[in-house]
């Protein structure tokens, strides 16, 4: 499975990539009703509708699912992030360091971890937390929060996430989509998918 991804690349690079002899990617089908493991830290979901898992992953602990294409309605699972690790792969540890999940990270600080990651990784200047409240996630105390941001392509986006810390590891699922049309159209699909998330031994 590929470890890098297009992540916020402009259209020009997408076009250029077509002209190269890069291999065809093998995005995976996630079929409605079939339980599937996400990552290798015991997280599983049973999708209530068909989804696509993108072959290109944002990092060791993360994988992204979509309905219509990357960035249009992205569900990203962060599964079992250990203390000291960033939630996505650092492109340049020296010059573009990412915030790390830590042993002492509290649930209420998870939105800040995501914000810091987005600001550094996507190089955006606009990110705001819309709401944050306690919830149950994976059978544990967790946090449910929503946010909005504008990527460096100038397109305003909205997001929602659930997170929990289990056995000193971070588990989180996020949904990001353009505020025009796509967020409202697919947020219910995200919520019903996240509702099925479970941790197995």
């Amino acid at each position, binding site marked *: 499975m590929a470890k890098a991804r*297009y992540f916020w*690349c*402009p*259209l*020009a*690079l*997408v*076009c*250029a*990539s*077509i*002209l*190269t*002899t*890069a291999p*065809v*990617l093998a*995005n*995976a*089908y*996630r*079929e409605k009703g079939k339980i599937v493991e996400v990552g290798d830290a015991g997280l599983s979901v049973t999708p209530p509708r*068909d*989804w*696509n898992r993108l*072959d290109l992953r944002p990092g060791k602990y993360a994988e992204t699912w*979509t*309905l*219509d*294409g*990357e*960035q*249009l309605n992205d569900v990203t699972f962060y599964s079992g992030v250990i203390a000291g690790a960033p939630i996505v792969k650092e492109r340049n540890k020296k010059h573009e360091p990412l915030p790390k999940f830590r042993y002492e990270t509290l649930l209420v600080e998870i939105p800040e971890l995501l914000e810091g990651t987005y600001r550094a990784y996507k190089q955006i200047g606009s990110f705001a937390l819309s709401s944050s409240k306690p919830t149950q996630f994976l059978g544990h105390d967790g946090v449910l929060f929503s946010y909005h941001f504008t990527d460096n*392509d*100038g*397109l*305003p986006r909205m997001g929602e996430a659930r997170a929990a810390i289990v056995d000193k590891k971070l588990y989180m699922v996020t949904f990001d989509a*353009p505020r*025009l*049309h*796509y967020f409202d*159209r697919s947020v219910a699909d995200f919520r019903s998918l996240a509702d099925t998330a479970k941790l197995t031994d």
Partner: protein
Amino acid sequence: MARLRPHLLALACALAVAVSPALAQAPVATEMSATRTGFAFPANGEVRLLIFRPDIKIGETTTAGLFQTQAEWHALARKEMIAALLEETRQRGFAASLHEEESALLSEHRALFRLIVSAAIRHKLFGRDPLPGKAEDLDWTLGAGMAQIAPQSGAHYGLFLFSQDSFESAGRKAAELVASLMGAGAKGGTHFGYAALVDLRSGDLLWLNVDLKAGGDVRTADGASARIAQLLSDFPGRAGQVKP
């Protein structure tokens, strides 16, 4: 005023790799189009087409391989491509008009549109990154918010166009000549674009044509006409009408 564009530099590098003889072993399709299943223009009556100002990026590749936009070329290209677009669509029997106003709402829809086209190129048109759980159809939309952009126009359809051209500076050409004499692959500038038709009531993407190696010098009337004809080559026709 010339301005450096980092992503265009990256594009130039990627295209340089793409046209390298060592890597370009297999032919790669450079022009693809798709039409939404079941779409056809109405056979009778006037069909109003709203043309959005083309999204044009044009400039020069310096000796160092950096892309610099050229404002004068941009103005020329915009003028010639708009004229060519209006002429071409009117010849095809459409009541075409140009949408001049650039509102914040349109700007946001343009950004979403670029994302959708990027998804269609990756996941549908060229078959390099397919989504197994998504139907084969050209099934993307901008949403019903498109209806708020120009309701007074009375147009049912909107036409978007993107064009990117990078011409080589004299220094760049000289450097490539030297490189070719030393056995390295030489290349010309990069030119690509797309045209897309959108239903202005639903926001649905109806037709898309992408050309990764476009022709025609868009700074001239003849070149712009050639480029527009190329980008609209598979444009859905009206029943009983012949393409110009």
